[in-house]
């Protein structure tokens, strides 16, 4: 199982702050994003998007492990 979180404009676009996704061997962040799009019916690919795996910034080719916390969010604007 993957625990997926959404923040800021991505959270609003998806319409929820989190979802669970089935995990599959060899799954990357990009594959999980496709699963999010399929599950929510919302296209995210045109957006400026960052991903984090277990609280660390990762690129979209990062492989995932069962139980990971995955997050999608727009470029950060803190400070």
């Amino acid at each position, binding site marked *: 199982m993957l625990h997926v979180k959404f*923040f*800021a*404009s991505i959270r609003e676009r998806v319409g929820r702050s989190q979802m669970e996704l089935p995990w599959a061997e060899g799954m990357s962040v990009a594959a999980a994003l496709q699963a999010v799009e399929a599950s929510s019916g919302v296209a995210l*690919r045109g957006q400026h998007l960052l991903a984090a795996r277990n609280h660390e910034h990762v690129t979209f080719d990062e492989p995932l492990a069962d139980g990971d916390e995955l997050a999608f969010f*727009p470029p*950060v*604007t*803190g*400070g």
Partner: protein
Amino acid sequence: MQVRVQEEDFDPAEVLAEKLPSACGAVVSFVGTVRDYSDASDILALEIEHYPGMTERELRRVQEEAARRFDILDSLIVHRYGNLGPSERIVLVAVWSSHRAAAFDACRFLIDVLKTSAPFWKKEITPAGARWVTDCPGCRAGTRHGHVHPDVLQES
């Protein structure tokens, strides 16, 4: 080194007074506040969202990098989230060092890197409605930068 992510306001003096290493000769601090204007429209308030857990971790990572890069004694980051009105404090970054050059360099490094890596997002509440701040300098300049655009996933 200390990181605080909190909803409530803070008193810069109080947090700075708590720590003063004895070999210290210089303290440089940066306080970011809510401006009452942004581009054309008036800002009534700012909503700051964060990613509990990751935000603290990322701020600590940035602090550790500053400690490796610069000759400093200590550093502190305080960042608020939630609803903030005009001229309210958002963030405090402070650096203690024996010499001022390292203190200035490290403080600037911390706030610059924090702004591009710590998961905080600002939503501006204006008379015309609410809108997410989407200022990504890298996107604007069209240069290679911190985040991947999913529309170029095939290339990466």
